[in-house]
């Protein structure tokens, strides 16, 4: 049942990704509606899958790599819908859905069985820490999408060739503001994730910080986003530089997310 829901979400996200890429090249209202519809169905199935696993396992289903990757993509789609609702930037879908799909695809290739949770992890910190961490990272994922859109649009305006999707992308200022908004949403969440993580570590292992690879990477990304915010406020690093930094920031998050798993060391091996 859980697997079927997951596969369903995967299939719909895949279809939405394809449609979203077609949508880039062919401007039609109906295509963008189909795209949003597909994402919506996928998201519903995905939500049901997460609820199902929650009920079966009895705790938040972010306890193995399959679940965490899945929850990561779910958070991205959730924030996309919030943005879509507020700012009507459906073209953002074309820049974000491929990421969502790749995450889901890798999630689908990982073992999906629900195993009993090790006693160390059985804590209310599990829910708080993981949800906050993934929502933060999802905000950065969208900042990545918006940053990419900014670079594309900036390229059109700078090069003075206004073809392609120039007419459909929002203004540079809008994209820049949206990028900043997402980063200022993600940053406190990431901060909170690090704090709750170390509190949890203290209660589980008796020390706040143990230089575990994921801790190090989180700290690195925290610094990157701190720099983005600081540079904007102090030195006026906005526009192109902010966009490049937010793209780099998210690529580092992805590298860390998958890289640490491949290395397979440290306290976070369970996710």
């Amino acid at each position: 049942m859980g697997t079927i829901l997951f596969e369903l979400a995967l299939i719909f996200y895949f279809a939405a990704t394809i449609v979203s890429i077609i949508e880039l090249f062919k401007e039609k209202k109906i295509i963008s509606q189909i795209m949003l519809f597909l994402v919506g169905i996928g998201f519903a199935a995905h939500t049901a899958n997460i609820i199902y696993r929650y009920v079966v396992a009895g705790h938040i289903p972010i306890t193995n790599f399959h679940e965490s990757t899945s929850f990561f993509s779910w958070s991205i789609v959730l924030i996309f819908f919030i943005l879509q609702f507020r700012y009507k930037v459906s073209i953002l879908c074309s820049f974000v859905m491929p990421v969502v799909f790749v995450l889901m695809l890798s999630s689908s290739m990982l073992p999906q069985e629900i195993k009993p949770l090790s006693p160390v992890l059985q804590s209310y910190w599990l829910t708080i820490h993981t949800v906050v961490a993934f929502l933060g990272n999802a905000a950065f994922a969208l900042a990545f999408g918006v940053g990419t859109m900014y670079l594309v649009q900036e390229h059109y305006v700078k090069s003075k060739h206004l073809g392609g999707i120039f007419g459909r992308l929002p203004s540079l200022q809008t994209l820049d503001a949206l990028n900043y908004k997402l980063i200022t949403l993600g940053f406190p969440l990431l901060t909170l994730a690090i704090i709750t993580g170390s509190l949890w570590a203290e209660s589980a292992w008796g020390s706040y910080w143990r230089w575990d690879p994921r801790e190090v990477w989180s700290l690195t990304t925290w610094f990157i986003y701190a720099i983005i915010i600081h540079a904007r406020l102090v030195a006026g690093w906005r526009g192109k530089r902010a966009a490049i930094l937010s793209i780099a920031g998210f690529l580092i998050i992805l590298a860390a997310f998958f890289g640490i798993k491949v290395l397979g060391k440290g306290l976070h091996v369970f996710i």
Partner: protein
Amino acid sequence: MKIFVAGLNHNTADVEVREKMAFNGSRLEEGLRRFRELPDVEEAVILSTCNRVELYANVKDSTKASESIKAFLSDFHDINRSLLDKALYIYDDINAIKHIFRVASSLDSMVVGEPQILGQLKEAFEFALEKKTTGILLNRLMKKAISVAKRVRRDTRIAENAVSISFAAVELAKKIFTDLSEKVFMLLGAGEMAELAARHLMSNGVKEVIVANRSYNRACELAREFNGKPVKLDDFLREMVHSDIVICSTGAPHYILLKDQMQRVMKERKQRPVFLIDISVPRNIDPKINDLDNVYLYNIDDLQGIVDANMFERKKEAEKAEKIIEEEIDPFLKWLSSLDSVPTIVALREKAEEIKREEFEKLMNRFPDLDEKQRKAIECMASAIINKLIHPPTAALKEDPEDKDLMIAIIKKLYGIDVEEKENK
């Protein structure tokens, strides 16, 4: 009964002729009245804009009408006949319909796809309606032309991209900034083109206007006009710090804004984006400035390049529009031919026969015992009634009266006949 067009436009007549031929203000009413009163003209509409003057009519005979319309125009505008003959184009029937559809859809405009013409056509039509110079034919044609134009606009992207420099500048500004109404705009120098672009930008609403000019008096003058703040040209760099959009055309023979100057400005602006439009020739802003982050510099050639690309797009869309027009002509022609009296007479007779048959059958069902002779008698009577009833209208139509179109329309309406629909079935 024929649709007829006589007109001239930017292609066939230069501006002096167009000026002379224009039906301006009060002259329009008089012109329209006299046009309608010409012996061969039954309905009349005059469209007069700065790029075209067109007379639309429903005429009895194209050749005669064309003669009398030319005579009227030459007399009314006091214009040389040979000059008029050279400038004027004449269409009738299908060509006239097609021409009117193309004009309404802005395919015949100087700037293809420009949207004003449709409004002007609507106005011309409404004026004629008000003055009661139109009838069933032109009313239908004008309404159809307007709906065709709307369809063209909906189904093609003919009017989508900017095709003038000032439009292109505004379009770009909107892709750099979210909301122009919170932006400060500086006019640097006061060339004619710059003023035009400035006016256009301001019609989109900006927060504040700064005018800098070599002659301070001129700056004050312009500032008054634009409701802005005049500054001396030497102070413009200081003003750049809070100007988001700058249009520059000072007529200076060298660069007045260099890269390192702009770099300092950007630093003070905290890198807030700025859109520079340099329409001066020779250029006044160092083109290297475009390499700076968050600075977008466009010169006149860049803008012209965008306009050309958009023009090319429009031409492609115009081909689609031509196809739409071809599609729309056919149904209109069908309707037109249905106005002819013969189909109406036939339809009227069919309708009467149908009623007779139905009623006769009903009666026969009620009285199945009637013998053959009685049946015949009843049928004869029914036939006599319908014949007597439809004879007068039929005869009237066959006489080919003055107001035949109107009569046909009335008959169709009163009897609920729609010839067009029948044909389609």
